[in-house]
């Protein structure tokens, strides 16, 4: 169970209150049971006390005697734990034979006729519960105190048995309660789990929006989330439409200017062409940036690489049909880019286009996911780019070879987009001979 989870919080609080309740219940029940057993025990003692009082007589010589001895065997076995004793004032005048030579020591009850229970230590420091009563047997004004004591070990045994049974019962009850609570948590939090699954589906593109049948507590959040997705999608769509319109509006006149300028002989024509090219490059680069979503933080941002690579590859094979370039994919399946599909298309498109443009006959595209960083490698078997020129091609609109068509912006645009995603683009020497472009981007973990 994850510590920072609702399940954990609910579970821990329930376990705490269930245990607390059960412990309090156990204590209360034990106290009540002990009281009950003690009352029972005391009643037994008082019964015997009454019997002894009834047996107590004062002889004609004023001597005390017991007209009969209690028959209960326990009072006759030595140190049985059951004793009786009769005092006259502080003087012991009769004892049970179970006491042998020992005596019971207790505080004399204050009041007349009141029965009283005391806890004392008997022979062998045995804990005893003693019932006492003062009886005026004669008119001498001397108090006769009758005492009957019983070992509390019997009470303790009873209470111990009871607490053991109670403990087992309460533990079983506790386990039952916690299991039910776990079920309740699972059932109660099910909508949240469904929400998580639905979000996952949105991320992986299985569904467009979150469903709207969540419980009332969750539904407002779901509605807001959907609204945020609608909003960001609409914003992006609007920006892209406008960028597209602007591109259309700017590039047509630029085409015209460039071609007219080409007709003008000499330096004036050349200057016009150069400036038109520069304008075209700015338009291209800034529009490509304006078009970029540039963020993997929108909810529906998880793009499977393979279909996009397939699309671009289809395009390349068509465009470079004459040169029959072999485009090889390696391990592109089940890798996801955390960002916008169109942005990935731009990056992969430019890299693959560049690779195909310069390749001898082979282009290789491979990818991997390390610690949520997606590493896309596009390499070719062309002539590559010399180390000292690599920085140049990444700058705006720089071209190393003016004879191959293209704006020379490709790699620069890729770098721009990668930077928007806190990624990077590095150019290296490929073992295949040509350029090896390594694009690092955030990867989407589709297991959320």
């Amino acid at each position, binding site marked *: 169970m994850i510590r920072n989870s609702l399940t954990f919080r609910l579970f821990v609080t329930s376990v705490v209150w269930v245990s607390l309740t059960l412990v309090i219940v156990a204590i209360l029940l034990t106290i009540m049971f002990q009281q009950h057993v003690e009352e029972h025990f005391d009643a037994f003692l008082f019964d015997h006390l009454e019997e002894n009082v009834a047996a107590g007589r004062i002889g004609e010589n004023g001597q005390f005697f017991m007209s009969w001895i209690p028959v209960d065997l326990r009072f006759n076995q030595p140190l049985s734990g059951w004793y009786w004793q009769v005092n006259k004032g502080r003087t012991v005048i009769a004892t049970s034979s179970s006491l042998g030579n020992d005596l019971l020591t207790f505080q004399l009850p204050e009041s007349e006729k009141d029965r009283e229970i005391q806890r004392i230590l008997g022979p062998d420091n045995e804990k005893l519960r003693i019932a006492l009563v003062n009886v005026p047997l004669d008119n001498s004004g001397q108090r006769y105190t009758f005492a009957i004591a019983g070992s509390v070990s019997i009470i303790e045994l009873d209470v111990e048995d009871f607490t053991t049974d109670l403990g087992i019962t309460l533990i079983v009850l506790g386990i039952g309660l916690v299991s039910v609570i776990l079920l309740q948590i699972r059932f109660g939090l099910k909508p949240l789990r469904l929400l998580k699954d639905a979000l996952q589906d949105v991320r992986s593109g299985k569904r467009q929006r979150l469903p709207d049948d969540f419980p009332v507590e969750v539904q407002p959040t779901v509605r807001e989330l959907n609204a945020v997705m609608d909003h960001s999608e609409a914003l992006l769509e609007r920006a892209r439409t406008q960028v597209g319109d602007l591109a*259309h509006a700017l590039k047509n006149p630029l085409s015209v200017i460039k071609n007219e300028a080409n007709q003008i002989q000499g330096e004036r024509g050349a200057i016009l062409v150069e400036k038109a090219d520069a304008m075209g490059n700015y338009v291209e680069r800034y529009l490509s940036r304006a078009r970029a979503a540039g963020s993997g933080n929108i909810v529906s941002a998880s793009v499977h690489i393979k279909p996009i690579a397939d699309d671009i590859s289809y395009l390349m094979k068509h465009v470079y049909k004459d040169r029959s370039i072999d485009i090889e994919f390696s391990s592109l399946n089940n890798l996801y880019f955390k960002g916008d599909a169109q942005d990935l298309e731009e990056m992969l498109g430019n890299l693959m286009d560049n690779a195909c443009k310069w390749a001898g006959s082979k282009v290789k595209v491979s990818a991997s996911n390390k610690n949520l960083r997606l590493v896309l490698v596009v390499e070719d078997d062309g002539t590559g780019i010399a180390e000292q020129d690599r920085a140049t091609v990444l700058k705006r609109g720089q071209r190393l070879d003016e004879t191959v068509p293209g704006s020379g912006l490709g790699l620069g645009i890729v770098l721009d987009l990668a930077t928007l995603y806190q990624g990077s683009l590095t150019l290296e020497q490929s073992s295949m001979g040509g350029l090896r472009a390594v694009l690092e981007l955030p990867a989407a973990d589709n297991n959320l």
Partner: protein
Amino acid sequence: MKVLVVEDDVQIARQLETALKASGYVVEMAHDGEEGLYKGQNESFDAVILDLGLPKIDGLTILQQWRAEQRNMPVIILTARDTWREKVSGLRAGADDYIAKPFETEEVLARVEALIRRTSGHASAILSCGPVQLDTTNNRVTCNNEPVEMTALELGMLSYLMHHQGDVISKTTLTEHIYEQDFDRDSNVIEVLVNRLRKKLGNTLIKTHRGLGYQLVEPSSD
């Protein structure tokens, strides 16, 4: 070779038309989607240059419509939006190549030339038939390595025949591909042109199949 240009921007259209005509192509223009769609459906072209952003019907829809109707002429799309998605959907809809705006007309010419050549199954830019060679990149014709001067119409016919070497081509097809639409199809200019080509390149190069048309054949090496 007859090319259809579907482009709503008047200046771009004019520039393309001028450049294509200068390279010996017969050019048909369409300035909106509807006109473009109609022309592509009803006339035969060796190549089409199709802008994607068109009024009335957009380029992609036109292309899909043509392909659905088995109009299989090669199509180059012009895109100003220049996103890979647009390029991919263009090619998936049946385009053969794309050119991103702003472009230079030279590049368009090179792509049109390569596309026509590729469509007729020629890998090299220089088409040859016996002693005759045609460099499609600059329209220079040589016979036995000697340069041969040609008029635009002669070149148009030779180019069409060279691209379709071995095929018997009817007079109507030839007319369609080397003349503008409003040409009087009953005249005998095709015979005149064939005779002029025979005079310049040798009598055995173009074979006449009576009632069927003409065929460019490699002269037997005797």
